[in-house]
Structure formats: C-alpha cells, structure tokens
C-alpha cells in the first residue's frame, strides 16, 4: 500500500549488520564498513526520492495500536533525509576511525550500528511513541560505548550522560502523555495541524487546565539537554572527552542533531505559540550558549574538550535561529527572514556534523601518533613533521571557524541573515561567538602546528595513504558545500517554506 518500504529497510539494515558483526569477531570491522556503506547509499537514495514540493514523502503507515494512538508512521522531508545522510556519513567515518579497537571488536561495531539504527529510526518516525522508542534506543549503545571503551574517567562520564539525557526524556514523555490524554493522538502531523488551528491548546486546557506552557517547557527541556543548551550541557564535556574518539564523532556529529531535529519536528510545530511567548528568555539562553560555549572552549587545555565546547557554541547558532524565528510575522520580507534562518539551521546541522566529526577524527589520529596525548601544550611545530596532516586539519578548523569557501560559512551567514532583522540584539551579541571561536581555533593551530618542532616529535608520522584516502572525501565535501551549497539547499528550501507554512507562533 505504501510502495517500497525503503525507510523501514534502511532502519533495519544496521540492526542486521549489528547482529552479523556481533557474531563475526575479527571480521566485525569489515561487516560494519560494508553495512555503513550500504546505509550511506540507501540514505542518498532517499535524498534523491524526496518530493519536489518539500512535503513529507516516502510515507509508510501501518496500524500498530490504534486505541493508544500508536501507529507505525514513517516519512521524510528534506530535513529528515538530510539527517539520514549525515548520520550515515558520520557512522561511516566513525567505523573507519575505529581500527584500533581490539577489545571486543564485534560488540563495539555492533553497538555502533545499533546506534545508527536508533538515529535512522528517530529521523524517520512521525509518531511520538515510535520516535521515542528510537530516541531512547540510541542512548543505550552510546552509553555502553562510553562505559566500556572510554577513557580513564569513563564511568562517571557515561553515567552522567545517561542520567541527564534520561531526565530530559522523562520530561518529554510526561508532556506527550498529557498531550495524548487530551487529544488522543500522538501523530506529529495531526498535532501540528491542531496546533496551527489553535485546537490543541483548547483541548489541553479543557482536559488538564492551563498547562500548555509547562508541557512546552518539558519538551524544550528534553531537547535542551540533547543539543545541548547552556546550562543543560554539563554532561557534554565529560562525555565527549571520555568517549572513545569514534563515539565522540557520533555524539557530536549525529546525536547532537537529534535535539535540534526534535525542536524543528516536534517543539516548534506543536508548541509554537508557547515558545513564541517564552522567546526572550530562550533567546538569552541561546546567546549565552553561543558566547559562553566559545568562551569556555578558550579556557580548555585538552583538544577534545576544546572541540567539545566549540560544538556547544556551533549548535548555539542553531538555537539562536530557532528561537529568533519563533515570532508571528506577516509579509514576504519577514517570512524570508524566517526562511533564511531556518535554511541556515538545517544546513548548519549538516555542516557542524561533518566538521565536528572530522575534527574529533583528527584528534584521534593525533592520539594514535603520540601515545594518547591530546593536551594543547603537548605539541608544537608539528606542521614541519606532518605537513599534510596540518594542512587537512587546518582546513577542517577553518571550516569550523566559518571561513567563506568552506561549508560552515554558508549556514552561519544564513543564520545571521535571518536572525539580525528578527532580533538584532541577539545577533549582534552572538557575533562575539564568531570572534572567540576564531581565537580558540587559531590558538590550537598556533600551539600544535607552529613554532619550533621539539626533538621528540621529529618523527611524528604524517598521514598515510589510507588515511588520506579516507579523509579526502570529507575535506572535499567541506569545500564543495562551501562553493555549491545549493546541492543541499535546493531541496531544503522547499521544505523550509513548507514547514513555515504549517507553523503558528
């Protein structure tokens, strides 16, 4: 009835791969690589099959538990499909970066693939129950990956990560229970339509009293932890720095996008009016996330922690744009401001995923070459010993600081283009984040790659062929998307217009 169930197959694929990987011991890496490659091909196929008008396509529906409002309902628009592609790319990168895992490789690769399935599931689900299952499912492999293969302080890091995210999930869950009790539906599309007609608020108020703002806060809290938004971010530096680097790549590159995605797919469509009412405090928090995230990065001495906080800063731009556009507007010019901001957010999600994953990959390679060192002050002058390494990591870092010609500039430009007319104060303060990030990243280049080369690093190996081969497409993609962003935006813009048309603030 739904045609070829490509989204279901795509989600099942990594699970099958995980099962095979678990059983195949030494060959798990090969299995994982093949699975990740097929998944990437599948996600690209999905990207090409999107409906041209930006609406949700590739829909699969089946009754599940109708009396409970639970339905098997899948579908993607450009937002979801882009996240599928990103997840597939980052998973492939993470698998490739894992070749030094000798302890229980079958389990390791299996868990990574389960995580990929969790990501796929949550980016395609259109029913709350279904979505929530995958949202939680992705958490479990992440937890064990940190817990079993992490650094010296992995225990507390994993625990804090898990509990923190769980607490957010509980808040989400409670909010949605209330919604379901009042409306009898857990379908995102149905709820969005109710919210945009105003019926949702009336029904909830009739059933439970004036709780809509609290429900919105609960949902926001769940996503604020995941993105994260300051001050709900304290799990992040520990988790990112203690997780094994391939897992950090997944956490920063793909899982952090689940939070932003949730804001776009669930929070803004269903709680738009409530978010618009809380817009000012939320904008303040977003600006704090942008600025203080960057500033906290400036105080770190550990490369992973630096990039972790820098990640907070970069996703802060997404929050900034999301909250800035949550305001009722009229007229083409104002709608174009919102559209620019939203295009920027979606593109930034992809760009940050790509760049952050690449940066953590480079850190992994540094650690591999230095016997585990990754302190800012541990190196110096490496550019002389490893010029190609320095050059490619330099490109990734300049991508991260938003240099034109590389991917992130386009999304940050669109975000500032959209936010400035919607809230010029927030935009003006947030440019501080651009400055500080640049200072932080240039300091990394200065301390790690410039200056005299110490004797004991004289033999620091440059990238070998296999590493160059693996990195080339990633760096190439950064340049390509910096010059030809329409590769993504041509599909995203119709979705943006479509989304905005259904949202009510």
């Amino acid at each position, binding site marked *: 009835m739904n045609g070829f169930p490509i989204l279901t197959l795509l989600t099942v694929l990594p699970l099958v791969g995980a099962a095979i990987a678990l059983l195949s011991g030494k060959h798990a890496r090969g299995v994982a690589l093949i699975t990740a490659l097929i998944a990437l091909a599948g996600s690209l196929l999905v990207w090409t099959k999107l409906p041209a008008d930006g609406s949700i396509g590739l829909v699969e529906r089946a009754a599940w538990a109708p009396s409970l409002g639970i339905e098997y309902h899948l579908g993607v628009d450009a937002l979801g499909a882009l996240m599928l592609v990103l997840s597939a790319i980052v998973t492939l990168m993470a698998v490739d970066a894992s070749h030094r895992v000798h302890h229980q490789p079958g*389990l390791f690769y299996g868990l990574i693939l389960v995580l990929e399935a969790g990501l796929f599931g949550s980016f395609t689900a259109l029913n709350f129950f279904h979505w929530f299952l995958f949202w939680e499912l992705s958490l479990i492999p992440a937890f064990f990956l940190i817990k079993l293969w992490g650094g010296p302080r992995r225990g507390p890091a994993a625990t804090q990560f898990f509990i923190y995210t769980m607490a957010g999930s509980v808040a989400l*869950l409670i909010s949605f*229970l209330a919604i379901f009790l009042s409306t009898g539906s857990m379908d995102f599309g149905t709820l969005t339509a109710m919210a945009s007609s105003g019926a949702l608020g009336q029904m909830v108020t009739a059933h439970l009293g004036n709780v809509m703002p609290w429900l919105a806060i609960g949902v926001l809290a769940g996503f604020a932890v995941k993105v994260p938004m300051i001050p709900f971010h304290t799990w992040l530096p520990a988790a990112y720095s203690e997780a094994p680097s391939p897992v950090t790549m997944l956490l920063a590159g793909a899982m952090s996008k689940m939070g932003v995605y949730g804001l776009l797919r669930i929070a803004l469509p269903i709680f738009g009016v409530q978010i618009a009412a809380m817009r000012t405090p939320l904008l303040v928090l977003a600006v704090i996330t942008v600025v203080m995230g960057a500033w*906290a990065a400036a*105080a770190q001495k550990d490369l992973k922690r630096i990039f972790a906080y820098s990640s907070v800063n970069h996703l802060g731009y997404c929050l900034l744009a999301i909250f800035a556009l949550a305001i009722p507007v009229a007229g083409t010019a104002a709608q174009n401001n919102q559209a620019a901001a939203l295009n920027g957010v979606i593109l930034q999600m992809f760009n940050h995923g790509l760049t952050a994953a690449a940066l953590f990959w480079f850190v992994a390679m540094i650690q591999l070459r230095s016997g585990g060192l990754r302190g800012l002050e541990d190196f110096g002058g490496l550019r002389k010993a490893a010029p190609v390494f320095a050059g490619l990591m330099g490109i990734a870092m300049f991508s991260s600081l938003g240099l034109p010609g590389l991917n992130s500039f386009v999304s940050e430009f669109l975000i500032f283009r959209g936010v400035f007319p919607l809230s010029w104060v927030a935009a003006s303060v947030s440019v501080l984040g651009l400055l500080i990030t640049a*200072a932080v990243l240039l*300091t990394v280049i200065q301390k790690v790659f410039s200056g005299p080369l110490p004797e004991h690093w004289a033999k620091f190996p440059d990238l070998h062929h296999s590493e160059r081969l693996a990195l080339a497409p990633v760096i190439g993609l950064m340049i390509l998307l910096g010059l030809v962003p329409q590769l993504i935006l041509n599909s995203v813009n119709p979705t943006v217009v479509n989304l905005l048309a259904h949202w009510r603030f």
Partner: protein
Amino acid sequence: MLIQEGAAAAFHPQIAGPASFAVRNLWLVPAVPIVAAGVIALLKQPRRKLSAGLAIGSLGFSMLLAFVAFAHVAAGWASGVAVRETVNFTWIQAGTASVALGWVLDPLSAVMLVMVTFVGLLIFIYSTGYMAHDENFTRFFCFLSLFAGAMLGLVISNSILLLFMCWELVGLTSYLLIGFWYHKPSAAAAAKKAFMTTRVGDVLFLLGMVWLFAQTGTLLFYNNGAGSMEGWALGGLISAHAGLGLTAAGAIGLLIFAGAVGKSGQFPLHVWLPDAMEGPTPVSALIHAATMVAAGVYLVARVYPLMQAGAAANGTTTALIVITWIGSITAVFAALIAIAQNDIKRILAYSTVSQLGYMMAGLGIGGVAVGMFHLITHAFFKSLLFLGAGSVIHGCHEEQDVRHMGGLKAYMPWTFATYAIAMLALCGFPLLFSGFWSKDAILESAKGWEISKGPYYLLVFGAVLTAFYMTRQVSYVFFGKWRGHHPAHESPRVMVLPMAILALFAVLLGLIGTPAWPWFRSFLEGHGAEANLSVFGEPAFLMLLGTSCIVVFLGIGIAWWLYGNRSPAAEEPDALEKAVPLVWAGLRDRLYVDEFYDVTVIAFYRAWARVANWLDRRVWGGIVAGVALAFRGLAHLDRLIDESWVNGGFDKGCEELSTGGGLLARMQTGRVQTYLRLLALAFVVLAAILIWSSRP
C-alpha cells in the same frame, strides 16, 4: 544584463545590450590564479620551476584579460559612455529571496584590476629571486596565487556577499603568508594577531552586510536599478531610522567601514599591520602595502553611494565625517610612530598605515577619485619601497635594523636609485613624482572641507612627518659609512628589473592625475577630461604648491640635518632620542596601543574564559551534582521500598538478565542495571497509563 547608470550626468549611461566579451569572461581573472594555486598544492613533488611558472603564467593571463577589460571601459569612456556592465546570478534561494552573486566591470574595478595584476606580476617575478633558497618555495607560490585570485575576486565583486567571501579569503592568505615561516613563534603569533584583529572589523562588516540585505532585499550592488547602491534601495535606506540620529544608510555604512578599518589598518585596529612584517618581504610588498590593505579603501569606494546617501547641504554624511576623521588621525598617528622605528620594514609598515589614512581621508572629503588616485600611486611606490627594502635585507644578509646598515648607495646602486625615487614619491616631492599629485589632491579637498579644518592641519602635519621619517631611513640605510659585518651586495637582475619598472611608474603615474589634465578623475566619474595648462598659473594651485614645497623641504631638511651623512655607531642613541628621550620612548614603543589592548581586551577575554570555565565546573556542574545527590537519596528510599514492598519478579528478572547476559555481568557496577530498570519501568508506566486512559 547591463546597467543604466544615471549618476554620471555628463556621459551617456550605457544602454543595455548583449554582454561584451570583456565582462562575460571577467570571472576568469580571479579563477585562473585560484586554479593555479590548486594545481600547485596538488603537485606530488615540490617542483620549483613548474610552480613558479604556473603562478606567474596564470597571473600574466589574468593581467592580459584585465587589460582587455580596461580597454573596453576606456573605449566606452572615449566615446562618451559610462560603462557599467554586470553579470549576476542566483547562488542560493532562501524562502523567496535569492542570495545573488555577480561581477561588475566599471571604471573602478577596471583600474583596480590593472593595478593588482600588474604590480602583482612584478612582485611574483621578484619573488622567484627573493625566495630562491627557501625550502618551501612551491608552497609560497601556491599561497601567493591563491591570494591573487581572492584579491581579484574581491575587486570584481558585484555582490557584497561575494566581496565579503573574497575579503575573508585574502585574510586567510594573509594569515598563511605572515606565518609562512611558522617555525618562528613571532611569525605564528603575528599571523594570529593579524587574523583576529581584522576579524573584529569583519564581524561588524558581516552585521552591516546582513542588515543591508534585510533592508534592501538584495546583495547586489548594481542590478538594473534594483541593486543596493542604486536609487530605489538608497531611498529606502535614507528614510529608515536606526537610532542615535543615524539613518539605516549611515549605520550600515559605519558597520561596513568597520571592516575597512580592520583590513586597511586604520586606528584603532592598525596594530596587526606592523607585526605582519614577519612575513617574507614580497608578501609585505604585495599584500601589506599595495593590494590587500588597500581593499578597505576599495570597499569604501565601492559602497560610496551608500556612504554618501542622504548627504546634507554641505555635501557630507555622518559616515563620511567619521571616515575622514579616522583617516586623518591614522595618518598622523602612524607617521609619528614611524619616526622612532629602527626596523627597515616596520618603518615602511607604519608609513603604509599612515598613507592608508590619507586615502580614507581623501575618500571622506574628496570622493572616490581622490582616494582611489592615491591608492593607485601608493601601490606602485610603496611596493617598490618594500621590494627595495627586501633587496637591502637580501644584500645585508637578513639584517633588518637600519642602524646596522649605512652607505649602501655605493654597494647597491640600482636599489638606491629606485628606492630614492619611491621615497621622493612617498614624500610628495613637488611636480616630478606621482605621490605629489595624489597627495595634493587630498590636501586640496581637505582645505576646502566645510565641516572642519582639523583634517587639513593633521594631514599637512603628517606630510612633514612623512618626509622626515623617510629621509631618516634613507640616511641610515644608504648614506654614511657601512656599519654591518659582512660586505653588502647588489641583488640579482630578476629582483632589480621589477623594481626599475615600478620606479618608472612611480614617476609617470602622476601624469594621469594632474589638475591640468585630470584624466583619472574624469575616467572614474564618467565625464570628459580636457587639458588645461593654465591651471598651473592659478593662485589656488600655486598656494598649494607652495605649501607642499614648504612641507616637504621642512621634513627632508630637518631629517637631513639630524641624520644625513652622520653615520653614527650602531649603539649610539638616535639624534632625536638625545633631544627628547621621553617622547622618543613613547614613539618607539608604538604609543602603547598594544599594551593598552593587553590590559583591556586581551585581559577581558582571558578573564571571561576563566569565568565561563568556573561557571561550568562550579555553578552548572554544582547544581547538577546537588540534584544528583538528592536523587541518590531518593533512590535509596526507592530501593528500600522496592526491596521491602515490591520485591517481585521484575527485580528478579533483571537479575537473571544480568547474570545471563555476559556483558552486563562484566560491568559489575550495579548502577547500569538500575538505569536500565528505570528505563524499563518508565515504559511500563507509560503503557499502563495509556491503557488506563484509553479505556472507553
């Protein structure tokens, strides 16, 4: 897609027709050097001859195209048409608004294209000699080519976004080339400082750009009347108010100008430019004297309609007044510091800052033609000065301190001759040299400025200082006795030849901008130029000539009296230092601007980094720890209840799972099971509530 330009009243605006060959292929001018840079970067082995050949060949090709473009505009001018042709295209679409890029061929971009490609080519050739022994020769030409491409892209941009992108890319190449000898910590630090200082201006420029885009709905400068520099958009910008008594045009203009302040080393963001001298000298000549630092001036010229929009009866706007004052202050401030420097390149660097101030002031008071004329003449004689300084450094075995030089005119006759010409051009030596004409045009307009006479006096004083510090430098370097250790030698022909060519232009360029035949102005402004020699007899011109003579001879005279042929020992204090030690110390230490930033901006940055970190670890982390503690208490309670009350199969099942599943057993922490149990419990509760609530 041709543009009608209404402002040039004397000339026919161009009538739309098929795009000319020149403008259709204009994009190749930046594209070819960028492709060359990419090819050089991907060369398997460092191939010196091939990479230098690629870089020089590609820029040579660009130069030919630039000449074709220039000829096209000039032909239009000769037949009474103000050429302004554009090619625009949509880059991306956001909502229904298009983010457009494009390029423009008009007199402004044509003049700049010719200058950048021509000076750039000479410096490329010079570099093959100067960098001959560097181990990273190929990388040098890769970066140089990338720079040339980005700079040329900036010049032809018809979209403020494209201009900004190229603007940042030239910043990147500047960063890479300042830090070219990255193993020197000072070079690495200078590169970072340059990038960061200019980025302060750039983020304000970014805000100005997005504001302009939001306000006018377009990023294009010129687009058949719908561009942001054209009537309709400007009208909207004037009528919108931005607070503080500014119109939107004024506020946006000032934000964009902030970008120019950073890039063009204007006070108070000038601090990076002297440090940028850590880069190889050809880089200083090309990027930090002739082209990139002039990009700020070019930017202001490009958005001049915006700066001028809504001008009052006295012909000026707030933005232009600010530009004038910043330029004038910079001109004097930097010239003062230049007096007390001993590094041959630093003297020139401060001189560049000062001259960029003249250009800004010229733009602010006299308009595009006045500022741009000084930009062009300065590009030739200042790059020549840097190439001369490079030749001196080369000949003196990497010595940069002028006190350890002396008497070089005997050892390096060619370098001396060309340097002397450039120096006189910079001083504004009357009548013979291009610098005289371009600087006089600025002074002339400053004299007639209605707002204030302050800039005029500042700029005249700056001219005295210019003559003074250049004479001091030349005395130290070329006159007196040789004070170095190894004998100096003249540079190879491949370095001397470009210098000779530049010297020729340092003289001849004046001919296109004299009051008697102001071709340059009429070309840029789009009206006819008539030769009128009688101007030279007018009292106004003679007055100005007199002032200029007094200024130049005063500066040269005092400096020659103090330093000329004296040949003090290297350790001996400077003549001025003996006279006014306190003033000298202040100037030598660059008037403490860097120190001021250290204790304010840098200290603030560091303090807030610590605050952010402290907040993170103590406050946010502390709250989380507190909550965790509370929950641990609750969990304890829960366990009590659990064990004594529930004590059911759920628990037992979990335990079985944990012993059965090898994985969970290995954890042996107990905690994990608790969380999993919590998760399972949550689902059970969810299911229970759902079932209960959905009962009919």
